[in-house]
Each structure stands twice: as structure tokens, then as C-alpha cells.
């Protein structure tokens, strides 16, 4: 684990690092955690299928049918009610085209 990797991971995770101090701190703690989990490499897992769901269930799919949940007909209004910025029924984001 080095600072270059930490900067790359922070970029993938869309987390702005505050500066050199945070980069150093994150590098140190990530090294610690990754070396802690490294011990899994000693387990022989040849031929073992990965387990993603403890009950082995295949996740159900619902019918492909629109519903308003319990938000009623005013669903879109209420969904927008938590938006930091909205306009005419749309979410507003900073300009993405120059």
C-alpha cells in the first residue's frame, strides 16, 4: 500500500482527500487493515464456490410493473422533496457540458 494507490482508490470512491496528512494517514491505516485480511491467503480454497448469500437463495425478481409504492400519486414530488436542488420535477446538478 502506497500513497499512489490510496490516491487512485480515493478517486475511484469519489472521496476528496484533504491533503498530504490525510493521504499519509489513509495509507497507514489501509496498510494495517489489508495486512490483517491478508491471512486469508493461507486458507486452501481450491474448488470452493464463492458464497454471496448465506441462504443460497436466488434473489426473487418482482413483476416488471410500475407501482407508486406507498408514496401515492404524488410520488415524484415526494421523491424530489429530499433533493438538494430540484426544478420543474427534475434533479438539478452542476453543469456537465462546457
Amino acid at each position, binding site marked *: 500500500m502506497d500513497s499512489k494507490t490510496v490516491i487512485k482508490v480515493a478517486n475511484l470512491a469519489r472521496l476528496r482527500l484533504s491533503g498530504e496528512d490525510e493521504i499519509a494517514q489513509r495509507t497507514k491505516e489501509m496498510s*494495517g487493515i489489508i495486512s490483517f*485480511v491478508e491471512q*486469508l491467503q493461507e486458507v486452501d480454497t481450491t474448488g470452493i464456490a464463492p458464497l454471496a448469500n448465506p441462504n443460497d437463495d436466488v434473489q426473487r425478481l418482482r413483476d416488471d410493473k410500475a407501482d407508486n409504492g406507498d408514496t401515492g400519486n404524488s410520488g415524484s414530488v415526494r421523491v424530489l422533496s429530499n433533493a438538494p436542488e430540484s426544478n420543474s420535477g427534475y434533479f438539478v446538478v452542476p453543469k456537465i457540458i462546457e
Partner: protein
Amino acid sequence: MNIADLTLEETSTKLKNKEISSIEVTEEYLGRMETYRGLNAYITETPELAMEQAKKADTNIANGKAGKLEGIPLAIKDLFCTKNVKTTAASKILGNFIPPYESTVSQKLLDAGAVMLGKTNLDEFAMGSANTTSGFGNVISPWKKNDGSNQDLTPGGSSGGSAAAVAAKLCLGATGTDTGGSIRQPASFCGIVGIKPTYGRCSRWGVVAFASSLDQAGIFAENVKDTAILLEASSGFDPKDSTSADIPVPDFAAAMNGDIRGMKIGIPKEYRVDNMPEEIEKLWQQGIDWLKSAGAEIVDVSLPHTKYALPTYYIIAPAEASSNLARYDGVRYGLRTEQDALLDMYETSRAAGFGDEVKRRIMVGTYVLSAGYYDAYYIKAQQVRRLIRQDFIDAFKKCDVLLTPATPSAAFAIGENEDDPIKMYLNDVFTVSLNLAGLPGMSVPAGLDANGLPLGLQIIGKAWDEETLFKVGGVIEQAAGFTSKAYK
């Protein structure tokens, strides 16, 4: 009669016999919440809503339409979305979030007639074991050491607010969630009962997601029977949760008949960890003796991959968290920092909104899922996860339940174990395997340590066999005669 001295079951009986009203009960608990506000157990109190619901409950009782929890005041962990009531996940990034919908579990409790007192504090996004990562301040345990030090202790985490609220009698029961031990560890630290049911027993719908294949809702109450009553009301199939199980919900309280004669209790040898405090060892042996005297048979079992459970968890949980928390982008809800460019807005909003532990886990999760590391870490961890689950399947061929300590120590002081993340993670050494295997586990208060602080025993069951947990839990509760209380 002091209303706060009554258990949930006793309160319920008195309500239905009209000896007391829900308004009286609710007022008593709201008053206690005010008196003990210094514990910081609640992030949001909802007194007006509670009084409205109490009034309705009294009407329902008068009209003979009482539900199973009619008029019972409960607390809801602030990870469960509650319609029109602020839900923060103890994160600044959701500091002003007002859900337009109700989580299935809280809806079920309300449908049964419960009164909601408020939303309890927790570690941010349920990531922590001491309730010190909350964006809204630590929770202080109502317990103190008996040495007169008056030092503030942690209630445990992540469901620290719920556990403290139940222990201080600031509610009659509370919901929690448990991803690696977040119900069982705080229950143990606070001298109350906590159950994490089988994965899929309680719906995850409307619960702010941390690690979806591990997250499970559950219950805190001051005794085993009250826990059984609340779990039954919270459980059941929900088409809105794709991993909810479509199987019947038993009458959990009815399973508590005290008869464990001939039952086989497995003792996993790998849980005798290095440097285990003598008190924990002694308590465990005490538990074994109690069950033996009640007629159970003790069987030694082995869970050989136990030592790999924590490292497995600290790959899978951060991986799922990094994916789940990608949704907090400052667009649809939550905190936004104003920026001219979209990417800057994402990055600065997330940097400002998430706390340190959450960032740490997002970073680790992003790393183990990133190109070149996915197979070595994430897939490897999922393979070991299968081996861990297989250990339990093999052990349960020889026994009906397992008995272990719930935690490696009693509650520690706020601020302890904060210097190294791994130190904090080790709190979950006895609890985390169950989440990986999807199994139910219950923590039952069983004794006090030399400082007068509670210690819990953990009962681990087969998938869908919570009934046996309640049965054994009831026997331990009775044998332990745990009557120490944190509240006055």
C-alpha cells in the same frame, strides 16, 4: 406502582385490563427520556407523534381492537426509515433526510399498535463497535463501574442508542440491526437481551443499507420473553426485500417452556481465544453448568475456520458498503457542497458528509473490489465465507445450539480502543461468524464482572431455529437470576 418498573409483557397486560392507559405509559417514558437526555441515546425524539399514537392506542383498547403491541412505547434505531420522521443513519450526509416511506419492520410494529418514542443513536451507517463514530455524538452507557470512578462507558455499537435506551428504561424495547455483532455486543455491554435472527427473517426494506448480505434487523428488550414478543411482531415475508424468506413465523414466546432435557449444547473449542479474560472464561463455564443442571447434554464441537471470520468480514463488509454508499452523491438526497463541476461536487460532498470510519471502510471496500485485487481479496473472502458456514453445518450435526461468550470483555471506557481500527474490530470476534453464515444469535445477560459491569452469553442456533434460542435463553435467564439494573 412505578410504570417504568414494569416489563413489556406486564405493561401490555395492564393496558389491556385498562389498569393504566397508553397515554400515562408514554408520558412516563417521554419524561424519562428528558431526564436522561445526557446519555444521548436518541438522535430524534418524537413526543408529539408518540402522544398521538398513544391516544389512538387507548381508543383501540377501549373499542376492543387492541393489537399485540397496542400502546407499547418503543424506540427505533435511526437506520430504519420512518415516514415523515428524520432518518439520519447517524451520518451528517443524511442529516436532513426525511423518508417518504416507512421501513417494513417499523411498519409492522406500528401496525401491531406500538408507539414510537423516537429514533436512537448509532455508529455512523452502523459501522462501529462503541457508538463513537456517530455524526451526532457518542452514546453514554447508563452503567458505571462500581469503583466510584464515574467514568463514561460505551454502550457498545453499532446499535448503542437502542441498547442504552432499553437498559436505562427510556423505552420498553427497541429495534436494532446487526451486520457483525451490532445487536449482540451492545446487548451484552448493557445487560439486556438482544437477538439477531436468521438472515431473511426480518425485512431489510427501508433499512439504510450497510452490507446487504450481512445486515439483519433484530430486537432489544430487557428480558427474553419481551424480546420474543417483539421479534414475532417484526418478522415475516416481505416481497419488497429480495432476500426476505417466505416461511411462517412461529410463536417465539410459546417456545419458552423451560424444558431443555436431552438437548445437545455445542461448545466450540476455537472460541477459547488467546488472552481471554478469566471472568469471561468463568462465565462461559457457569453457563455450561446451568444448562447441564437443566438436563442438557454438553458436546465439544469444532469450528476450524473461526480465526478467519474477522478478516473475511473486513473484506466483504467494506466491499458491500463501498457499493451501497455510492448512492450518496449529493444529487437525489443528502448533503451537497456547492461546486461548479459535477465531479468536484461528488467528491467534496462525500468528503464533507462521511465520517472517518465510514471513509476508511469505503476505501478498503473500493480497493478489494478494484481491478487486479477482486479475485485475491473479494472472491477469496467469499470462498472462505462458504467454509465458515460449512463449519456450522457440520457442528449442528452433533448439537442443537452452540453456547459461547457474547463479547471478549465487558464495556470499556469511551475513547478506549480508538488508536487502531483493528483493536475495535476485535470486539466482534465471537459474533461476526454468524452474519457470514446467516445464523441466528442471541445475547443474554448472565453475570457481572469484578467492576460490576454486565457480561452476556451468546446462544447460536441453526438457520430458522430462533425458537430454540428463546428456549435456551429463557433457561439461562432464569438460572442467572440477572436482576442488576442500570436504571433508577
